C-alpha cells in the first residue's frame, strides 16, 4: 500500500511540475510581446524571430568557446534588445497607432529575418546541451533545467513587476502608456520611452529564446512555432501586461498540459488553440480587459 501511495505522489508531483513548466514556457515566450502590446498597443509579428535570434545569440558564441551562461543571459538579451530599438525606429514608429499595418509590416520583417538567417546560417538545427542533469522523482526523470526555466520565468515576471512599479523609468513608462499626450506635455521624451520599451520587450524575447534553445534546438523557422502561442497568450491576456500574461499562460498552460497527459501532445496543442478561440469569443477584450483592468 505504501508503495502505491508513493507512486501516486510521484505521479502527481511530476504532473504538477510539467504543468508549471508548460505555464512558465508560455509566459516566458509571451512576456516580451506582452510588454510591447500592453504598453504600446503594437503587435509585433516578428516576435517569434526575436526569440529565434535570441536562441542563435545564445548558441553560436559557444562554438567559439564563450560560456553558455554568458551568451544566454547577457549576449542574447542585449543584442536582440539593441536590434529591437533599431527596428522600432525603422518600422514601428512610422506606423504608430495603426494596428493592422503594424502587424503586416512586422509579418514582413518576420519573413525577412527567416530568409536572412537561413541564407547566412543555413537550415540545419543548432543546439546546445541543457546544462545540469536530471533528477529522479520516483520512477520519473525530470531534467533540472525544467526547474531552472520555471525559476527564471518567475524571476523575470517579478523583475518586470518591480521594474515597472518602483523604478523611475517604470513609472514614466506607465504614465506614457496611460496618456502619451499628457506625458509629453510634462516633458517626457515619448519617442525615447517607446524605443526603450520596445527594446526591453525585444531583449526579454531574446532572453526567452536563449533559455529555451538548449531544450528545443534552433532553426531559422523555430520562431514560427512560438509566434502563434505568444500571440494567443498576449491577445487573450489583454492589455494589462503582467496579470494578463500570467493568467492567460496559467490557463492555457494547464489545459494544454493536462490534455496532453490524457491524450497526445498534438491534441494538447489543439486544446490550447481551441480554448483561445472560445475565450476570445467570450471575452473579446481579453481576460484583463474585463478583470484586473487597472494595474499591472
Amino acid at each position: 500500500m505504501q508503495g502505491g501511495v508513493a507512486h501516486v505522489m510521484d505521479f502527481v508531483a511530476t504532473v504538477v511540475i510539467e504543468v508549471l513548466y508548460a505555464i512558465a514556457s508560455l509566459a516566458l515566450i509571451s512576456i516580451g510581446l506582452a510588454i510591447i502590446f500592453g504598453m504600446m498597443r503594437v503587435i509585433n509579428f516578428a516576435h517569434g524571430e526575436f526569440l529565434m535570434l535570441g536562441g542563435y545569440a545564445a548558441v553560436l558564441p559557444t562554438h567559439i568557446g564563450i560560456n553558455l551562461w554568458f551568451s544566454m543571459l547577457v549576449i542574447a538579451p542585449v543584442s536582440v534588445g539593441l536590434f529591437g530599438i533599431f527596428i522600432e525606429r525603422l518600422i514601428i514608429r512610422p506606423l504608430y497607432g495603426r494596428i493592422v499595418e503594424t502587424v503586416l509590416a512586422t509579418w514582413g520583417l518576420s519573413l525577412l529575418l527567416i530568409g536572412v538567417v537561413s541564407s547566412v546560417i543555413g537550415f540545419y538545427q543548432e543546439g546546445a546541451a541543457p546544462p545540469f542533469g536530471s533528477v529522479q522523482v520516483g520512477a520519473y526523470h525530470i531534467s533540472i533545467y525544467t526547474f531552472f526555466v520555471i525559476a527564471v520565468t518567475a524571476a523575470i515576471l517579478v523583475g518586470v513587476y518591480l521594474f515597472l512599479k518602483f523604478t523611475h523609468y517604470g513609472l514614466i513608462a506607465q504614465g506614457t502608456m496611460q496618456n502619451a499626450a499628457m506625458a509629453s506635455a510634462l516633458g517626457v521624451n515619448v519617442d525615447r520611452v517607446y524605443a526603450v520599451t520596445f527594446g526591453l520587450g525585444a531583449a526579454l524575447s531574446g532572453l526567452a529564446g536563449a533559455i529555451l534553445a538548449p531544450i528545443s534546438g534552433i532553426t531559422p523557422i523555430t520562431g514560427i512555432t512560438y509566434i502563434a502561442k505568444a500571440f494567443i497568450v498576449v491577445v487573450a491576456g489583454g492589455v494589462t501586461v503582467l496579470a494578463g500574461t500570467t493568467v492567460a499562460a496559467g490557463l492555457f498552460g494547464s489545459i494544454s498540459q493536462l490534455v496532453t497527459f490524457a491524450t497526445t501532445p498534438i491534441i494538447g496543442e489543439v486544446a490550447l488553440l481551441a480554448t483561445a478561440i472560445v475565450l476570445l469569443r467570450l471575452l473579446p477584450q481579453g481576460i484583463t480587459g474585463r478583470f484586473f483592468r487597472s494595474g499591472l
Partner: protein
Amino acid sequence: MTLGNMNKVGPAAVALCGLALAFALPNFVEVFVLVDLTAYIVMAILALSLALVWGYAGILCFGQSAFFGIGGYAYVLAAMNLGESTVPLLIGVALPMIFAAVLGYFLFYGRVGDIYLGVITLCVSLIFYNLVNSMSGTEYKIGSVPIGGHNGIPGVPPINLPGHPALQLGYQGTFQLSLIVLVFVYVGLHLLLASKFGRVVISIRHNELRTELLGYDARLYKLIVFVIGAGIAGIAGILFANWGSFIGPTVFSILFSAQIIIWIMVGGLGTLLGAMGGAFVIQWLNTLLGTTKIADPNIVLGAIFIVFVLLVPRGVQPKLLDFIRLLARRTVDRDGEASVTNHGKM
C-alpha cells in the same frame, strides 16, 4: 469612352480575353507551360477569395489558407474514396462554406474586434496544420484513404466528366477548366460587388458604424461574404489538388497564409484585377528566386511586404488608377466632366 464606362467594359474585355486564351493557348504552347500557368491561375482564384473578404469587406482573415486546405483535402478524400469526381467537387466547395458559416457566426455575431479576428482565423489555420501534420500513422484515414500526415496524399485522380469516370482531364483540360473557373469567379465577383448587396459590403469596409446606423445588419453581410470567400478558396484548393495530383499540410501553414496576404497588399486592397496581378507577380518572383537562387525568397517577400506597408499601403493598382485619373483629369476637364468615380472594381 470615359473612364467611368471603363468600369463596365474593362471586366468584360478581361473575361473575353481569358476565355479566348483558354481555348486558343493550348494550340500555341508546350504542355509544361500550360501546367505552370495552371498553378498561377489557381493562386489567382485564391487571391480573389481574399480580395473579396479582406480587400472589399474589410474582414481581417489571416487564415484564408484554412478554407483552401479544407476544400482541397475534402475533395481529395472524397474523390479517392468514391472513384468519381462530381460529388467530391460539391463536397470540396460545400465543406469550407459550412465551416466558414459556423466560424463566421461565432465571430461576427459576437462582434469580435478587428485584430482579434485575425488572431482567431490564424489559430484556426494552425489547428488544421497541427492536426493534419500529425496524422501520419496508417490508422488515420477517411474511408480507405490515409490522411498521410506531413507526407500528404499523393496520387490524386484528375477530375472526370460527370457520369464518366474514365473520361479524365489531362494537363490541357485542367488548364482550360482552371482558367474558365477563374473567369467565372472574376465576373461573378464583379457582378456581386456592383449589386446592391455588394455596395453595402463595400460601405462596411469604409465605415461599418455608419452602415449600421443606416439600418443595415453588417453582421449578416459580413457572414455571407465570408462564406462566399471560403467557397471560392475551396474551389482553388480543389483545383490545386488536381494540378499537382497531391495535397499536403503545407496548405495550412502560416507562411502560405502570409503569401496570400502579400498578394492582396501588393495588388491593391479593393481591387480584383490587382489581386490577381499581385498573385501572379509574387508567384513568379517566388519561382524565379527559387530557380536562380539570387536570394532567399523569404528575404525578398519580406522586404516587399515591409516596403508596401510603409510606402504603398493601398497597393499597386490603386496607385496606377490614381495616376491614370490624374492624366484623365487633365485632358477631360475641359469637357466639363466631373472627376471620375472609381469604386475600385476593376
